[in-house]
């Protein structure tokens, strides 16, 4: 088989960090992804543009783009891509790179992920009230009012827990995640 020629540089990195990423090399810039993306309208760049930028090695512009953070993981792009490029996975990869290098302009999305995961890392389960609370206070104090009735509704309907549940095997989980992070750092 041919060895794909461009394994070096930024594109190479992105490909290497993504399951099935090699197919990125076969992108023909048809825009099916951009056209399919439900949140595409609000992205700095359409996914297609992002791939062109990756190809051009515009590392900083790519990592600073809000595009990956606006990905809602709906996978439309992935199933429609005529070259079967795992676009959603690529978005995760770009998010991880951005987080690792602190290269994002709006910290809202990464923070949301972090907050979400913090509860999981401490308790083994997610905790919506805690999550929303922390996140809202930090990023959208007034937004809270907008959805107040929802919050109230949720509570009155008994759909909001006031305290997180902690799983039994917490220490085990902590060890797993610690090791995982260590390995990821090396990888």
């Amino acid at each position, binding site marked *: 088989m041919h060895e794909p020629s461009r394994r070096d540089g930024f594109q190479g990195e992105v490909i290497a960090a993504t*399951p099935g990423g090699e197919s990125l090399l076969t992108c023909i810039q048809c825009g099916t992804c951009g056209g399919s993306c*439900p*949140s595409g*309208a*609000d992205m700095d760049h359409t996914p297609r543009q992002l791939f062109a930028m990756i190809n051009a090695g515009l590392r900083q512009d790519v990592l600073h783009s809000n595009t990956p*953070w*606006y990905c*809602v*993981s*709906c*996978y*439309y792009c*992935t*199933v429609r891509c005529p070259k079967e490029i795992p676009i959603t996975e690529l978005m*995760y*990869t770009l*998010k*991880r790179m951005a*987080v690792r290098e602190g290269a994002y302009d709006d910290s*809202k*999305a*990464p923070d*949301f*992920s*972090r907050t*979400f*995961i913090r509860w*999981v890392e401490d308790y*083994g*389960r*997610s905790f919506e009230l805690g999550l*929303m609370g922390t*996140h809202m206070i930090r990023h*959208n104090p007034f*937004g809270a009012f*907008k*959805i107040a*009735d*929802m919050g109230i*509704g*949720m509570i009155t*309907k*008994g*759909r*909001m*827990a006031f305290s997180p*549940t902690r*799983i039994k*095997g917490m220490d*085990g*989980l902590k*060890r*797993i*995640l*610690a*090791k*995982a*992070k260590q*390995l990821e750092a090396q*990888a």
Partner: protein
Amino acid sequence: MKYSYYPGCSLEKNAASYHESTMAIAGPLGLDFVEVEDWNCCGATEYHALNQTAAYALIARNLAQATKNEGLDTLVAPCSACYLNLRKCDKYMATEPELAGRVSQALAEAGLSYKGGTLHVRHLLDIVYNDVGLETLQAKTTRPLKGLRVAPYYGCMIVRPGFHNGDDDPEYPVTLDRILTALGAELVDFPMKAHCCGGHMTQISEATGFELIRRLIKSADDYEADLIVTICPMCQLNLDGFQGAMNRHFGTSYHIPVLYFTQLIGLALGLAPRDLGVGSEIVSAKEALSKIGAEVEEAEVATPRQRRDDKALPMPGRRGEG
């Protein structure tokens, strides 16, 4: 039919009604669910954005835990996000040696291990459609959903990324449609049936999040649906929980209740609404459900009014008649 069962965080609280209704219909449909012991959060889509190895290790712990259920090789998840995560993890543990290696090392820290392919991860919808089957549903229906115009809503994560079990089409799935028809409901040819509810977008960018919700609600409303039927807690939360906020944001006044398919099955089986967690939705389904039982001619796929006359040209795929 006995399965390992992974409820996932949502079903603990905000989607408790999904859990309750699932448990309620399990008996009558001959399903037996054994909850995975001491399961943990699947990390939703959030962990993938931070740390690949940790994300999959977190998921893999659940798979490892599930293997402790002796003799059960099928793992059922009602939440689409959980389902996709578990399924993807199971696949990559088999196909992505490097990642799998790291994950296994991590699991070993807690004396756990998981080999890709050991479990068969399936979504609850798949179980009901393939294992229970339409015939059984029809046979057990005592309170047909006649006259109820329902918009079947699949969301993204079960039909899309090609990990899903059945060969349902990622663009235009039909399994839920068939289930609802079997229950006697009047189906709406819901064009947005597989579009995105916005996931966590309400928290990242309200404008974007609300817009995604609006599209779905509007379309359901255009098609005069009494309610939207969903199979995913995240979708339910967005469409139901945020419907008010969305209305306010756009100055609209949509009122479309959003129920879980398990709740509708329960109703059709004649179970009491309260045993199915009906009533816990923010947008009340009271009025809509009051329709059940009304006499309507047999249900068929309803579409917006269209002009048709003898000049009309035949539709492709609807052929054969002279």
